[in-house]
């Protein structure tokens, strides 16, 4: 054990950092794209259901295959890895944003409109804050999945903890496989807890009690 840390300790920290970097970059991209898209979709519910099923189909493409598809287009390295993972982050965030916004109490939205809120004000002041807990749940789910899937980035030279796992598989060294798996799991757990905290903090004060009772 000590021996392992002596030889691979440095590498472990670097790889963990790479892993985190890839996952966070992908998730941020996902948030930036999926939340506005989800809000837009909520304005066109007829189209939204079809669109979301389409994104769902994308999700079913095996992750290894998608990584491989990107090699001819984007080559190898971190960027194609991030892009591929970004596609996987989309669905949970998109769907939760759409559902969250759609399920905002219509009475509240009508009241806002009747008081003279513009469409944008309604989204910023009413719909988004009220849908936030649901949206954050989507972001959390996406993040945890993504940290797991990011191990596959190593397959196209993206680095990260996946490097350990692939090395371990190639060299028949179980210790290396474990060295890749355990930190990835820990990262996912930490990220989940942090986001849970963030979710709690971002939930508007007046909504907390009602959600707790639910």
């Amino acid at each position, binding site marked *: 054990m000590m021996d392992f840390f002596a030889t691979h300790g440095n590498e472990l920290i670097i790889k963990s950092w790479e892993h985190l970097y890839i996952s966070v970059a992908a998730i941020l991209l996902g948030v930036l794209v999926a939340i506005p898209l989800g809000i837009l979709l909520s304005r066109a519910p007829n189209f939204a259901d079809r669109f979301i099923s389409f994104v769902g189909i994308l999700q079913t493409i095996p992750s290894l295959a998608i990584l491989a598809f990107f090699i001819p287009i984007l080559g190898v390295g971190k960027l194609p890895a991030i892009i591929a993972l970004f596609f996987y982050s989309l669905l949970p965030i998109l769907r939760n944003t759409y559902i969250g916004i759609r399920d905002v*109490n*219509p*009475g*509240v939205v*009508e*009241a*806002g*409109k*009747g*008081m*003279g*809120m*513009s469409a944008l*004000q309604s989204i910023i*002041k*009413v719909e988004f*804050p*009220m849908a936030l807990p649901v949206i954050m749940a989507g972001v959390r789910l996406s993040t945890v999945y993504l940290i797991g899937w990011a191990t596959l980035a190593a397959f196209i030279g993206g680095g990260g903890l996946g490097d350990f796992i692939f090395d371990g598989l190639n060299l028949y060294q179980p210790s290396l496989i474990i060295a890749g798996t355990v930190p990835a799991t820990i990262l996912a757990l930490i990220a989940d807890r942090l986001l849970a905290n963030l979710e709690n903090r971002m939930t*508007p*004060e*007046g*909504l907390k*009690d*009602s959600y707790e009772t639910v």
Partner: protein
Amino acid sequence: MLEFHDVTKRYGNGKPAVNNLNLTIEKGEFVCFIGPSGCGKTTTMKMVNRLIDVTEGAILVDGKNIKEQDPVELRRSIGYVIQQIGLMPHMTIRENIVLVGTLLKWRKEKKDERARELIKLVNLPEEYLDKYPHELSGGQQQRIGVLRALAANPPLILMDEPFGALDPITRDALQEEFKKLQRELNKTIVFVTHDMDEALKLGDRIVIMKDGEIVQVDTPEEILRNPANEFVEEFLGKDRLIQGRPDVTTVGQIMNSTPITVKIGTTLKAAITKMRDERVDSLLITDSDNVLRGFLDIESINNNYKKASTVEEVMETDIYSVSQDSLLRDAIHKILRRGAQYVPIVDEGHRLVGIVTRATLATLVYDTIWGDGTEFEEIVAHAE
């Protein structure tokens, strides 16, 4: 204040939801729109603040066509209260009350001041301003909903069944409170409801709608007294029409038609005998044509017994009487206001036809409370 000119709303090519509606609402008026569901009352209301657009015709607020105004600006200048209350659950009561102020970009101090000012109107403590909607009861929430509509002091307020979701006791309390508030603030209110009692209680005028058209517009009294047609009668319900009856009863219907009288020329002695025989302390005096000339009470006889011999010498000629066709409630009002024991009833020729005494009124009250059996007869008669 608010005018509807040939307003029509059509969805697609079907039957119009609102058809050729004409109505003028004066400033400070409280107008209730009522009708069965789908009659177009809510559509009519929502067209005023352009939540629904008018297909044909024009709606004028303060003489300006709403179509020529920016819908967002327009809505900020009109108060709006909805049934589901629609308080923003993620905002404090303070933020909710001054929401329109926020949209109009008021300064923070102005908003604070306005919020405190408003919450006093409904007798809630200021600490409530920092609470969240879910910490309040339904009735309190709707009070805040009403305050929110008042925040920017709009002259016109639209209310869409605002008390519909509340329990009957809270609803009753809120109706009273709101009616009082409306009188104080002199707002023009367009109030949509499906509850006839509510409309009768609150409205200065009631607009009864059916299939997108106005069936009758009138004061509650007038509607109870003269329902325009069978639909209105049915919508009011037989109970209410019967309840409304005391309003339309004339004094002629309830008076005692055998008042104790003496003719002009009767001696005081005979008058006293009559009083004693009939056990009354006052006599009405008529001439040979039965025209009411005056009255005589025991006190004036006492004072003048020695000096006079006939009733016309001592009678009071300044006598207050009521025509037999006048409404009971007006007569009651007059009796009570003058503190009179009785009031003689006369016909067009000022001929005495009867008398209404306080005892008559007591009997009437008794009948109203305990029933005199005529309700059943009327219902049966109506059914036939």
